[in-house]
């Protein structure tokens, strides 16, 4: 069906393009959020190199508080005269780096711990579950705040403190998924056919829990960016003058009436990133048929 419409367009363009186009058309729910995410990431990481943006911390007081579309400052400036676009882009870089790092650590460490716990069962499982219970019962925000404050803020410290939050979360998901897979008859079949533990884990277990973990990681990026934003907003995360979307929002509060873009721009970016992550996660979930 999609092929029928696309064919007329792509007749001259060859079979490769035709199939890509029809694929794109039928998976709009995946394409749009992915494209949004990729363009935001591209903008944050590549824009400063491609265009000559002023440094996010080199503002002059004379140029403070300029509105949108001012000459030389496309999105205006903030209280200290720093270019808003530059701060937005650099802040985005920081926020995305943190979110990505935290989720990667969570996926690898938490996923392994959870999978092991679910697979080995019995004593090991009970022990790990008790430890996880402590972390989960613990209001994670408190933990994160304490560690973040104690370490003095900053990017690395924020990553570690947020990992304390993501590792147990991933472990819980991995454990639940592993337990569900373990019930399946094909695991018994593999064991009966003489496969070793390693083989079972890598060839059977991991491919089956991977989709769930990936989706959780995707949603986790959204969650961590929001939490990191909250931390920075409260003053515990990334410290000024280093921009992060969170502390930009905090700073922009005072000037909201005169220059709402200072709050609305980083808020909008946060919202877009999280929205795309959620939409993509939803789309993948329906596609891969996971609850």
């Amino acid at each position, binding site marked *: 069906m999609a092929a029928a419409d696309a064919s007329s367009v792509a007749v001259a363009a060859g079979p490769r393009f035709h199939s890509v186009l029809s694929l794109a058309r039928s998976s709009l729910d995946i394409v749009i959020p992915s494209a949004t995410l990729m363009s935001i990431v591209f903008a944050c990481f590549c824009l400063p190199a491609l265009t000559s943006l002023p440094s996010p911390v080199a503002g002059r007081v004379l140029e403070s508080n300029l509105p949108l579309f001012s000459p030389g400052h496309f999105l205006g400036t903030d209280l200290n005269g720093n270019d808003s676009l530059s701060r937005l882009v650099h802040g985005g870089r920081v926020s995305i780096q943190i979110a990505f790092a935290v989720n990667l650590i969570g996926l690898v460490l938490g996923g392994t711990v959870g999978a092991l716990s679910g697979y080995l069962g019995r004593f090991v499982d009970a022990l790990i579950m*008790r*430890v996880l*219970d*402590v972390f*989960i*019962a*613990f*209001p*994670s*925000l*408190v*933990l994160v*705040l*304490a*560690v973040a*404050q*104690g*370490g*003095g803020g900053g990017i690395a410290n924020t990553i570690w403190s947020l990992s304390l939050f993501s590792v147990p979360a991933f472990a819980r998901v991995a454990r639940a998924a592993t337990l569900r897979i373990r019930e399946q008859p094909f695991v018994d079949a593999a064991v009966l056919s003489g496969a070793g533990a390693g083989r079972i884990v890598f060839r059977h277990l991991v491919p089956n829990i991977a989709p769930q973990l990936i989706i959780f990681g995707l949603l986790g990026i*959204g969650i961590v960016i*929001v*939490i990191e*934003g*909250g931390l920075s*907003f*409260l003053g515990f995360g990334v410290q000024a003058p280093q921009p992060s979307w969170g502390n930009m*929002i905090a700073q922009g*509060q005072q000037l*909201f*009436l005169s220059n*709402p873009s200072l*709050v609305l721009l980083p*808020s909008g970016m*946060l*919202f877009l990133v*999280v*929205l795309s*992550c*959620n*939409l993509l996660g939803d789309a993948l979930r329906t596609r891969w048929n996971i609850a």
Partner: protein
Amino acid sequence: MTKPELTPIVERRDVPWRSWAGGLSSALSAVILGLVLRRFATAVPVALGVSVLTFWILNLLPGNAAWSLLGTDATAADAAQLEAKLGLDLPATERYLQWLRGLLSGDLGKSLASGRPVTNLIAERLAVTAELAGLAVLLATVCAVGMALLAARTPLADRVGAIVSMVGISLPNYVLAIVLVLGLAVHARILPSIGFVPIQESPWGNIKSLILPVSALAFPLFSICSRFLRGDLAEQMEREGYILTAKAKGVGPWSVLVRHALRNSLAGLVTIVGLNLGPLIGGAVVIEQIFALPGIGRLLLQAINIRDVVVVQGIVLVIALITVSATLCVDLLYLALDPRIGRGRR
């Protein structure tokens, strides 16, 4: 012809305690008791673990309350003096054990900053946070049920609901709070931006000061709940046999939705709320900060900032206990709502 005698209905309260006929049979009460005991049994080691973890983290990190209280240009001598006064010069394990001993006699210690007993500090502020969180949960669940029911009946409401809830789970609550404050309070001056009016002073003032914070806190939870409910109701209406039976009986569409479908979704809804209690507390902390509400969240932030270990320990313990009790309530509610669990299986 004699009038046929009406069969005496065996009312639920007449059913003998050991009857299998349902109601609060001994089997069910045994399950409840078992659950409560098990929960409390695990709560103690968990709470202990939580307090150890907090203490360890707070003491392992550089700096302490003495330095924070004195400020940046304190000398080492002054700091040492204050440390001795506050009891911070004792080794960590001894301080912890001291705290633990105090805990067993109901004393949570004294704040390092103000010297006031921690129990008093918490007691003053717990009501505020409880009101904030409680109203938020209430608002979120009621609105979610309403939205889901409407969405099940009208396709337009379904579309709108889908968009609204997608926005709700993607928008950080501090962003929403900021926009609400700056838009409605500062710019339009409809509602107060900060401050809290206790209910004893003025009920209307109390409500006015809570409208914005409660809405900001409830919105993400509302979105999560309505997403779940919409999906669950739709799945039931499409797939479940008892819906067809109800329709075949001649039951009207609203009654089918509410009396048959919604009833089965409530258990799941309760579970979802339970899962989101942790993020709710975190959200409450941020919201209290933005709206300057004198709750334990704000106290916590202040205490963490100045390294007031004792206060932090106390608050963390209280929060952990509240979380455990809340989870227990959720489980009990689930038991009450889903008759397939706990009652005698055939």
